[in-house]
């Protein structure tokens, strides 16, 4: 039988395959470009100036880094008489199998380029004629027949090469350290104030016999902040289930609710008390930002919780929640990667997990060495990035060209 564990052990292999699948087409494409030197292929892919060079320069090529079905046309008017008069442009197109040219676009000339996507099919040769018109639609200039051009889709977006490279490095480093941790290597991580505070707050709530309120933020499930929040919740709810105290979790998104419901329920099952789970404490409240905030503000005022947790993605409601919560005298712990809201949590909560500390928190709680390994890996990625920054900066000071766009793919 296929188990999760077995799958995980094979995972490096899988990743490699994935990378091969992604990277291979790049090289294939490069090969293709170089083979374009072949005279027969050449006009199809390289820039081909057509029409008489003197007065108007017209060019066409397959649109780069796209899904196909698009040909880029551009024009540059060098003759002052034409450029003074021409205001509009008429684009005619003919596929290889067509008998005549038909108009595909009538547009203002000032754009200087046009991406023809109008029913363009891949791997078919198209020819173009461009008419330059003045404002009374009289023809000022007509280009010669240009092309043929062929549209084709690209497998790899070459402007994203740096992204792929850094994704590969990051993934590799993180997985390496997870692997090392699994093999029993011990890692040091410095203590994080907020983590201790979370544990203390849960402890205090159980002692006082008061509930905790847990707010998982207002984002969707695939948001990393939400996933990190759920990861922390899974640890908290185990403690809650073990000590028979209560946690109230109003939700903003029905899908996030579904996952959280399962996480909390299973914590109770693990603790051997599935009957103690109160389904009405974990519920969907509403998906409108301020209705959600007003509902939680009221809830906190009535339940008088011992601890409030605001962990996840937040927007303007952050301060409403934190201030309303502070009036009840509860310990408040917040954490968010929403940069604009961090200041409000800092001033109104007892502890705030800033940015990535939110993601790291789950690794600190509980004894899963693999999560800790991942955290260690993150640090080494950070080190790598700092070195990259410094090296690139020095290279730039030395005047190496192209450094100022090297990471962003030229755009």
């Amino acid at each position, binding site marked *: 039988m296929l188990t999760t564990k077995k799958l995980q052990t094979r995972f490096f292999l899988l990743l490699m395959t994935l990378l091969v699948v992604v990277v291979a087409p790049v090289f294939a494409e490069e090969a293709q470009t170089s083979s374009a030197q072949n005279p027969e292929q050449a006009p199809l892919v390289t820039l081909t100036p057509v029409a008489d060079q003197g007065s108007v320069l017209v060019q066409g090529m397959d649109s780069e880094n796209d899904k196909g079905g698009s040909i880029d046309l551009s024009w540059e008017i060098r003759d002052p008489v034409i450029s003074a008069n021409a205001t509009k442009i008429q684009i005619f197109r003919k596929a290889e199998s067509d008998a005549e040219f038909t108009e595909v676009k009538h547009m*203002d000339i*000032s*754009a200087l380029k046009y991406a023809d996507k109008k029913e363009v099919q891949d791997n078919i040769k198209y020819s173009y004629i461009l008419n330059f018109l003045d404002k009374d639609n009289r023809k000022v200039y007509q280009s010669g027949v240009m092309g043929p051009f062929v549209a084709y889709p690209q497998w790899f977006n070459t402007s994203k090469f740096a992204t792929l490279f850094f994704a590969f490095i990051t993934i590799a480093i993180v997985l390496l350290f997870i692997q090392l941790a699994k093999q029993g290597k011990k890692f040091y991580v410095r203590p994080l104030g907020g983590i201790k505070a979370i544990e203390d707050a849960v402890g205090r709530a159980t002692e006082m016999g008061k509930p905790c309120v847990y707010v998982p933020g207002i984002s969707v499930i695939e948001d990393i902040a939400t996933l990190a929040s759920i990861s922390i919740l899974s640890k908290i709810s185990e403690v809650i289930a073990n000590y028979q105290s209560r946690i109230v979790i109003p939700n903003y998104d029905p899908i996030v609710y579904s996952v959280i419901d399962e996480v909390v329920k299973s914590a109770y099952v693990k603790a051997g008390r599935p009957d103690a789970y109160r389904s009405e404490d974990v519920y969907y409240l509403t998906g409108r930002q301020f209705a959600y905030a007003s509902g939680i503000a009221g809830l906190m005022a009535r339940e008088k919780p011992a601890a409030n947790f605001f962990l996840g993605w937040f927007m303007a409601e952050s301060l409403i929640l934190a201030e309303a919560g502070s*009036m009840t005298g509860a310990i408040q712990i917040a954490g968010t990667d929403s940069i604009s809201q961090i200041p409000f949590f800092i001033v109104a909560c007892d502890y705030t997990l800033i940015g990535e500390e939110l993601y790291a928190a789950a690794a600190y709680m509980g004894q899963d060495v693999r999560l800790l390994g991942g955290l260690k890996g993150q640090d080494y990625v950070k080190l790598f990035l700092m070195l990259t920054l410094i090296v690139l900066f020095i290279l730039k000071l030395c005047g190496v060209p192209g450094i100022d766009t090297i990471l962003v793919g030229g755009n």
Partner: protein
Amino acid sequence: MTTMNKSNQDTESKKWLNFILNLDKRIVYVFMFFAVCLPFFLNPVVDIKSTPRVQSAFDLVEEAAKNHKAIMIGFDYDPSTLAELQPMAVAFLRHAFSKNVPVVGINFLPNGTSLAASTMDQIAKEYGKKNGEDYVFMGYLPQPTLVLLNLGEDIRKSYKVDYRGIKVDDIPLLKNIQNYNDFHLVICISGTRMPSSYIVYGVNRYNFNYVAGVTAVSATEYYPFLQSGQMKGLLAGMKSAAEYESMAGRLGDGMRGMASQTWGHITIIIFIIIGNILYYARKRMDVK
């Protein structure tokens, strides 16, 4: 005996300090409320220095009056940013109507359509302007990019009727208006990303005088456009509206709002200072 008394006194004043320190948010609330509320009854004037980016917006409307050309205003805000943006819209309308500049209003935000219509009607009434002759509101259309492109060709391409349902060809004001060239100035007032759309789909292609009115928070995003000349002027938040009002010589919500803002900010700063004094007072007592 004396020491007893003294410590009693100390605990008394400590209690009192604690009381103020912990209490009372509500006192802060009350002060805040009055700081924001009172300027609306007092009609105060705040001393505001004019900035070039507001001045040039003002000058463009003046030029429009001189050249007898119309202006176009995009009312792309909804109730959530009304307090900041409505004063700008009103200031522009008042200035234009007082100088007999015709105004064409458009809107791409469905939540703000009726708001824009009633604002135009109301200000027009103040100056005895007639709908269709001195001003017209075209109403809401979806797909702003397409409409903004079409406006470079012919307004009739997108708009068949105005907000009241009257055919474009039957509106006297629009007889001589075809596209951006017929407006001396185009203004977009919005808390959304709409002002950049005007640049990308309008200014870059058709090159007209363009001014944006935006919320204070989002202002920094637009400075680059100002430097590049794609925007001729920029109004950011209530402060700019107040500036504009003082230039036009008629004070309105911008000035009042700015007074509320000023008092609100000052209230917060004063409370920060009080909070710190009390905090140190208690700390010294604790040390004793």
